[in-house]
């Protein structure tokens, strides 16, 4: 089987390939940085070569086949690991690509007498290494995307604190632009807290919301309506002059909702609705 010849080359010269490969990578300056030491690099190289030899013996050069599953797993792990350490995509892909030269020189030595086979095996090796490098880059990308998604989720949670101001009064200080996904989280967190605390009044403070367009206003109204359905009254506070003008200009119907210019006024109103109040003490200590 023609496929087997590349595998045999790999198997026969494994030790030699490994040291050539590591030399190749050190020449690129990878080892000179502190993110990876030589022992780790040697470990990764040996593991990869061992898996690669077994995979090519069993499954030829079909990298998407079942024989290559361990190789793909290893590359995925390696790429994520490097991504987390701050390696660039090219540095990560070079891990695989730098194997090309050592393999080519081994093939050249072994097939010196048969130019036809030499060319064929070199082509086979090129295809194999290229597709493995592509896999590595994809895995690297996936790792990065997972990090971004996790950070987004964390930011979403960080940005929606529900504060208890007083017995029965909650405040929701909103900061940043409100999009659909955020509004959904805000709504869910708010309503959940309402159930937990048994509050009757919620103050939504939009001082930190830079712009209110029709979409944001609609999201706000949705939150207010959902809270109302649960028997909670909402007060919107922190409406800045420009925002008030925009809301009127856009023709958004905020008339069913109580709005206040600042949080202090809203809190005062909320207290008085609950039959309480704050005032200066007269003749006290």
């Amino acid at each position, binding site marked *: 089987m023609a496929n087997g010849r590349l595998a045999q080359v790999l198997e026969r010269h494994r030790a030699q390939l490994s040291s050539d490969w590591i030399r190749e990578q050190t020449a690129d300056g990878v080892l000179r940085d502190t993110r990876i030491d030589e022992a780790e690099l040697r470990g990764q190289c040996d593991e990869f070569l061992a898996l690669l030899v077994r995979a090519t013996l069993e499954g030829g050069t079909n990298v998407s086949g079942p024989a290559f599953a361990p190789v793909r797993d290893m590359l995925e792990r390696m790429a994520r690991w490097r991504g987390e350490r701050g390696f660039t995509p090219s540095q990560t892909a070079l891990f695989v690509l730098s194997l090309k030269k050592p393999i080519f020189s081994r093939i050249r030595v072994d097939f010196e007498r048969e130019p036809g086979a030499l060319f064929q095996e070199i082509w086979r090796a090129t295809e194999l290494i290229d597709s493995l490098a592509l896999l590595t880059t994809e895995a690297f990308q996936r790792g990065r995307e997972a990090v971004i998604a996790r950070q987004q989720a964390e930011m979403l949670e960080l940005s929606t604190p529900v504060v208890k101001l007083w017995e029965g009064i909650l405040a929701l200080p909103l900061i940043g632009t409100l999009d659909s996904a955020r509004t959904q989280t805000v*709504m*869910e967190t708010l*309503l959940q807290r309402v159930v937990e605390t048994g509050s*009757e009044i919620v103050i939504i403070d939009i001082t930190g919301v830079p712009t209110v367009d029709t979409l944001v206003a609609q999201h706000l109204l949705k939150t207010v309506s959902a809270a*109302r*359905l*649960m*028997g*909670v009254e909402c007060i919107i506070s922190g409406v800045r002059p420009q925002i008030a003008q925009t809301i009127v200009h856009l023709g958004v119907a905020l008339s069913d909702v109580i709005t206040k210019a600042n949080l202090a006024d809203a809190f005062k109103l909320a207290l008085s609705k609950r039959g309480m109040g704050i005032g200066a003490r007269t003749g006290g200590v």
Partner: protein
Amino acid sequence: MDRIPILKMGAFLLVTIQVDMHDRLAMALQDDLSNKIVETGARGVLIDISSLEMVDSFIGRMIANIASVARVLDAETVVVGMRPAVAITLVELGLSLHGVRTALDVERGMELLETALADGPR
């Protein structure tokens, strides 16, 4: 067929929905409740939906309808104990139940009914 029980408590009627509402059940409830209001001359109706986990547009509209019917029959209606998920669904469906009074739990609903009847024009 199952029916949702309607309990009389003083001048009020108490409806507790403990099962998942299906369309026929909601229609039967509307029928029973309007009859019961007329029969007992109740001044207030309290609908507890704290066990209701799922609503669709029909059930949402039926809740609004039941409240409107009760109002026509001169009884104040308070819907209490709506779950967050149900509230979000109703808002997303565009049913914000305007004109229906709401409260967090049965106790607060009762208070609301009492003050509404005390302050009311009648």
